[in-house]
């Protein structure tokens, strides 16, 4: 399982993963041995805990029908798919649940997007630059499979003395935007930007929100097909300005982030 790859990072940050499913102990034992899982898998046979916690997935048949999966009694009893992030005192700090039982995040996403901690494993970084700005793009993983959610992370570094605009922004100005080119089998979520800082310009009574220095923007990508190795096309548009020199022409930085089908890497696909 994918979480295993991030286990050294979880250990380094003193985070203990537990996975709960309705499987019997022997099913978990077989799965753990086959997939080389060393973290704790808990057996909630009969879905007693899943039910007590209010996580019993009442929609599973309806969702299977939506995917064209035949109804099977064994599917009844699964929990809603998702993750609770607990703090040192055991309080829920975040819930990261997926609408679809098929969709999953990576351990990297739980660490970086969830806990805000750096991961040592991720996809190969791609670099690009344009006037006043350097960008490094990478995905959570160098590989993907169907219904996996990978975050595209963009580390943007703005040259000292310059800023770019965030939102909201007065009309006629160009904010920093991130666009991922639509593709078949790729669902692109809304980019998540950090909060920009308020910036007042002498002589103007409009409020501007800006970014300076370094910032990270993340975009959730869900792959709904895994037929081909692919390339995620990203465009970052911005206008760099300085209080002393005014604004430069708007720029677009384009990056191509490759990602391989996991099946092709881990094992030859069997037809």
């Amino acid at each position: 399982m994918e979480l295993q790859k991030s286990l050294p990072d979880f250990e380094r940050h003193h985070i203990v993963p537990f996975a709960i499913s309705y499987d019997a102990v022997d099913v978990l034992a077989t799965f753990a041995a086959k997939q080389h899982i060393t973290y704790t898998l808990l057996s909630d046979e009969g879905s007693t805990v899943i039910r007590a916690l209010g996580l019993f997935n009442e929609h599973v048949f309806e969702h299977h029908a939506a995917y064209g999966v035949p109804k099977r009694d064994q599917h009844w009893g699964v929990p809603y798919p998702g993750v609770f992030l607990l703090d040192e005192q055991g309080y829920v700090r975040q819930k990261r649940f997926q609408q679809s039982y098929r969709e999953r995040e990576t351990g990297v996403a739980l660490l970086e997007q969830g806990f805000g901690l750096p991961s040592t494993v991720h996809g190969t970084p791609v670099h690009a630059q344009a006037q006043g700005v350097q960008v490094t793009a990478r995905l959570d993983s160098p590989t993907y499979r169907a219904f996996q959610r990978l975050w595209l992370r963009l580390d943007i570094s703005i040259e000292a003395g310059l800023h770019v605009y965030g939102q909201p922004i007065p009309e006629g100005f160009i904010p920093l935007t991130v666009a991922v080119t639509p593709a078949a089998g790729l669902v692109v979520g809304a980019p998540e930007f950090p909060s920009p800082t308020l910036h007042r310009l002498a002589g103007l009574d409009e409020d501007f929100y800006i970014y300076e220095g370094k910032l990270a923007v993340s975009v959730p990508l869900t792959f709904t097909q895994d037929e081909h190795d692919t390339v995620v096309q990203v465009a970052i548009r911005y206008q760099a300005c300085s209080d002393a020199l005014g604004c430069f022409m708007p720029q677009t930085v384009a990056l191509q982030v490759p990602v391989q089908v996991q099946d092709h890497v881990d094992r030859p696909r069997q037809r």
Partner: protein
Amino acid sequence: MTTPLDFGIDFTTIGPAVGERFPDVVLPDQYGQRVDLHHTRNGRRALIVFHRSAGW
């Protein structure tokens, strides 16, 4: 084929809420050993992952 991802479920009201202490859970692990989740955590942060099945 369409591939719906959003079924409009409101997860804020499903399961333990943000800000609550996660309930005590004691279940057997893959080795058949009884695991008390909070006791095993031993003051560390945790991820509690709920997934469909390891068998299918």
